[in-house]
């Protein structure tokens, strides 16, 4: 009997131990018991396509009909805006719930709760910036002062929660099963906090820190030469706004005109241009005199990092209260960010200027900081981060009047060793109180979605908190480009006089003697052009307006403008553009930068050959390929691989002196600075090789870089046949969990940086849209696509269907009025 007892103890211990083991997760390996039992992960949603469905909810005002076309795009018809937003909430949740959860958790600093220890620093990052704190204030403000819009956010949340509350093993998204968690209900706060995440993604520019360090490390004359105050201007950088207009009238006000004139007189310094390695986008429009149809055409392709499920969720939103808009939403917010309705179309690009974020060096004394003549108590927030599978972490965020002290934790950016201490961060989005003109994107987009003309469009976009260039076109023939967002006007010291030319582009003295924010550039005076005489508008993140504009909106961080120059060339090339042309332009793989630099390299090569210089066979073969190249970054070509590597090497070899200045890790001068030197100053000292006693010039550095390039390519890719661009340039849309099995395949793709088709491996044109404003109510009036699919369910036919259109340069039609029966996949009906 004793033996049996011992055996039983062993068996019991074995059973208990085994079960405990199966309830534990190890990194990416989920708890296998929960995961692999029949009701775990195997309750797979059965429908690869959408199926007819009915649903009732007493909170609805009337019947809502949702028709899915064969691309999985929902077309919502509701009687009220309230019901429309409820439906969008349900659609977002039923297709993208986990993605929404990640968005709100990231913004609130709560990722570690579901992903564990590895995300603590990411959470700290956003807790320091304080999106959670500002979103709470924002929600309270909207609830009290913007009741109509708050109620719409609640309707959206109710739609999301309608799905969450009725979730079953068959509708639970896979990611929740993998992580062993369940979704939490949605609130208006979640939508509000998300806006900060997106705005920071676009405008969280820390370049002022680089500028501070560059000014410290580089000799003054060097800094002024390579990072001068003014942009270079044409032909290197065609500004976005070329015929400035205010909103008050067709011309700038007398005051603005006089300031412009005074500034123009003062422009004695050479123009030079900024730097931008950030997110890129294109948008442009032509009016009827440059389109085949005689009506305005508009194109937009925002360039963002790819992810699966996509950042975008496409939808048509119709209500009997004046809503009929088509475009893309973020799965977390129920409004269309880029799209068109029956009257207007618009698309956005980011502004690359450095005006959004300023930094201050604070003077601290224990719990106080010195500002404006007095010691003031630091505001403190005890932030607690709960960690899945680990102990909670708490830490203190300290704030001055300017913002959080980012050096307390060195997570926003590690400044250890730079000499920058006690630095606070001030950002427009968290320093524009709700209710000011720029801080309510939800309200702004709602009004833009329903806008019928330029005036009503402006009534909406003026509420934007993120700085954007908005291309606009309407059914009555107007086109426009308008800059939007809160650009600070600074003053020298708290008692100073507002001065629009102050930049705040280096770390400021925080005691009140530095450049403080006085107000913001009035919306009506922001850079803007309406129906310009050239009959087109475009933006590609380059300099928004030339140096004659009386307010500072950034410098040295704009895009290099090679995309802008290519777009300008294409738009000027003919007067009868079509939507097909616009589609082709969005896929344009012509490298305008290469067209400027490569002829100079070829000349250098020819000169050296004429002087008897010899090269080894691989270098000659590489040069032969560049000789015959048409500047197209096609995936089947070898020349793009050679050029790309050569150009990177050429830049590196030119700016090798930065290492001597201990500035090797800081941002380098703009490519257009290099273009200017290359074309007009071939004997510039910057072409000298720093490591040699002899003096080298442009030709030597270009050819030396070619030798280096071939050596590098042979070493990394082997024989020249392996250098094909598509072998090394492949699109990859990674799932937000990082799991390859849920991601797209890696597929060779055309395009590259500096091109209109600005494809890098994990990002690029995230949405492509072309619209003809002549017939915006018909399905052939617009075509769109994005690299993803509407459904977040990897077993759905709509998980990556649009991705496969996208990589083949295809678009899908936008059904505006009725969906042909052959294109109707399913209908959902929601009733009260």
């Amino acid at each position, binding site marked *: *009997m004793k033996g*049996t*007892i011992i*055996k*039983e103890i062993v*068996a*019991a211990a*074995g*059973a208990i131990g*085994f*079960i405990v083991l*199966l*309830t534990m997760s190890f990194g*990416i390996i989920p708890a*296998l*018991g*929960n995961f*692999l*039992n*029949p*009701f*775990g*992960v*195997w*309750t*797979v*949603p*059965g429908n*690869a396509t959408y199926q007819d469905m009915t649903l009732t909810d007493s909170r609805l005002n009337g019947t809502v009909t949702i028709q899915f076309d064969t691309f999985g795009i929902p077309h919502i018809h509701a009687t009220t805006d309230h019901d429309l937003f409820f439906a969008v909430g349900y659609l977002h949740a039923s297709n993208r719930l986990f993605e929404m959860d990640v968005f709100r958790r990231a913004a609130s600093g709560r990722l570690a709760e579901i992903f564990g220890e590895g995300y603590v620093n990411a959470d700290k990052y956003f807790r320091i910036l304080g999106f959670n704190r500002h979103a709470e204030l924002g929600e309270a403000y909207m609830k009290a002062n913007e009741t109509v819009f708050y109620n719409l956010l609640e309707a959206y949340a109710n739609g999301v929660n309608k799905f969450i509350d009725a979730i*079953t*093993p*068959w509708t639970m998204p896979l990611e929740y099963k*993998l992580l062993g968690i369940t979704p939490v209900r949605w609130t208006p706060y979640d939508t509000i906090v998300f806006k900060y995440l997106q705005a920071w993604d676009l405008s969280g520019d820390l370049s002022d820190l680089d500028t501070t360090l560059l000014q410290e490390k580089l000799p003054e004359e060097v800094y002024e030469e390579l990072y001068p105050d003014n942009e270079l201007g044409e032909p290197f950088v065609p500004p976005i706004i070329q015929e400035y207009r205010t909103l008050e009238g067709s011309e700038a006000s007398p005051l603005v005109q006089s300031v412009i004139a005074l500034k123009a007189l003062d422009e004695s310094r050479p123009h030079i241009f900024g730097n931008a390695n950030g997110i890129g986008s294109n948008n442009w429009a032509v009016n009827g005199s440059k389109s085949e149809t005689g009506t305005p055409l508009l194109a937009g392709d925002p360039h963002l990092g790819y992810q699966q499920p996509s950042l975008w969720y496409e939808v048509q939103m119709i209500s009997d209260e004046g809503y009929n808009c088509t475009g893309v939403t973020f799965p977390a917010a129920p409004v269309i960010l880029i799209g068109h309705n029956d009257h207007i179309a618009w698309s956005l690009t980011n502004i690359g200027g450095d005006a959004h974020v300023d930094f201050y060096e604070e003077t601290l004394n224990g719990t106080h900081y010195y500002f404006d003549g007095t010691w003031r108590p630091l505001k403190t927030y005890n932030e607690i981060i709960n960690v899945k599978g680990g102990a909670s972490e708490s830490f203190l965020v300290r704030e001055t009047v300017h913002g959080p002290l980012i050096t307390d934790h060195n997570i926003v950016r590690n400044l250890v060793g730079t000499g920058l201490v006690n630095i606070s961060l001030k950002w427009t989005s968290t320093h524009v109180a709700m209710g000011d003109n720029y801080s309510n994107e939800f309200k702004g987009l709602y009004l833009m979605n329903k806008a019928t003309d330029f005036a009503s469009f402006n009534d909406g976009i003026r509420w934007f908190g993120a700085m954007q260039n908005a291309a606009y076109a309407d059914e009555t023939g107007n086109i426009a480009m308008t800059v939007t967002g809160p650009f600070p006007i600074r003053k020298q010291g708290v008692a100073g006089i507002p001065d629009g030319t102050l930049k705040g582009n280096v770390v400021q003295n925080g005691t009140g003697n530095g450049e403080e924010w006085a107000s913001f550039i009035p919306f009506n005076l922001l850079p803007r052009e309406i129906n310009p005489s050239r009959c087109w508008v475009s933006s590609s993140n380059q300099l928004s307006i030339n140096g004659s504009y009386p307010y500072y909106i950034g410098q040295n961080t704009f895009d290099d403008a090679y995309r802008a120059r290519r777009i300008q060339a294409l738009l000027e090339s003919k007067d009868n553009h079509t939507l097909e042309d616009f589609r082709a332009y969005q896929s344009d793989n012509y490298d305008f930068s290469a067209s400027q630099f490569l002829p100079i390299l070829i000349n250098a090569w020819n000169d050296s050959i004429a002087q008897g210089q010899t090269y080894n066979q691989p270098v000659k073969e590489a040069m032969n390929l560049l000789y015959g190249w048409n500047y197209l970054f096609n995936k089947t070509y070898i020349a793009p691989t050679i050029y790309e590597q050569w150009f990177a090497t050429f830049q590196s070899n030119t700016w090798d002196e930065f290492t001597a200045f201990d500035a090797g890790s800081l941002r380098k001068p703009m490519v257009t600075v290099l273009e200017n030197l290359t074309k007009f100053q071939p004997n510039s000292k910057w072409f000298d090789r720093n490591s040699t006693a002899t003096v080298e010039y442009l030709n030597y550095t270009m050819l030396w870089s070619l030798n280096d390039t071939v050596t590098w390519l042979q070493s990394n890719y082997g024989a020249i046949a392996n250098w094909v661009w598509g072998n090394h340039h492949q699109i990859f849309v990674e799932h937000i969990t990082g*799991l*390859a*099995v*849920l991601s797209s395949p890696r597929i060779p793709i055309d395009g590259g940086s500096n091109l209109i088709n600005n494809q890098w491996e994990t990002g690029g044109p995230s949405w492509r849209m072309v619209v003809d404003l002549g017939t915006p109510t018909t399905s052939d009036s617009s075509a769109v696509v994005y690299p993803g699919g509407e459904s977040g369910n*990897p*077993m759905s036919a709509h998980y990556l269907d649009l991705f496969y259109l996208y990589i083949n340069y295809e678009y899908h039609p936008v059904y505006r009025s009725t969906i042909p029966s052959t294109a109707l996949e399913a209908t959902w009906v929601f009733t009260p």
Partner: protein
Amino acid sequence: MSLKEFMKGKQSFLVGFVATLAAAVLFELLGLVWEYAWILMVVAGFLGGFLIKKAGIGFLAGFLGVIVAWLIYFLAFSFLGPVWAFADVLAGLFGLEGMGIVVVILALVLIGGLIGGLGALNGHFIGSLLSKSEN
């Protein structure tokens, strides 16, 4: 009838297997509302093992009883959704690209089967102890 007499008279593999199978199907159904219902497979196995005299046969009854119960669910779910295609996707998570069937078998055998088997061993030993205590 004493427990001892019962144990002597009802000790076939089939009885233990059917008992485990029935209990496993029933308990697993709770998975609709409770994510840890799979732990009850140890109870299903226990019931089967309790009825069998030999430890090895008891283990086998619990082991196979739960496997077959789960297999029934898998087959039922395969009519409701693309389970097998999804298994291929899951296989990729474990570095077994395109081998979804292996993941299903591992789920059945290494999780369901072993829980049932271990439960059955416990059932068998407890049954034996109770039987001996009546002597």
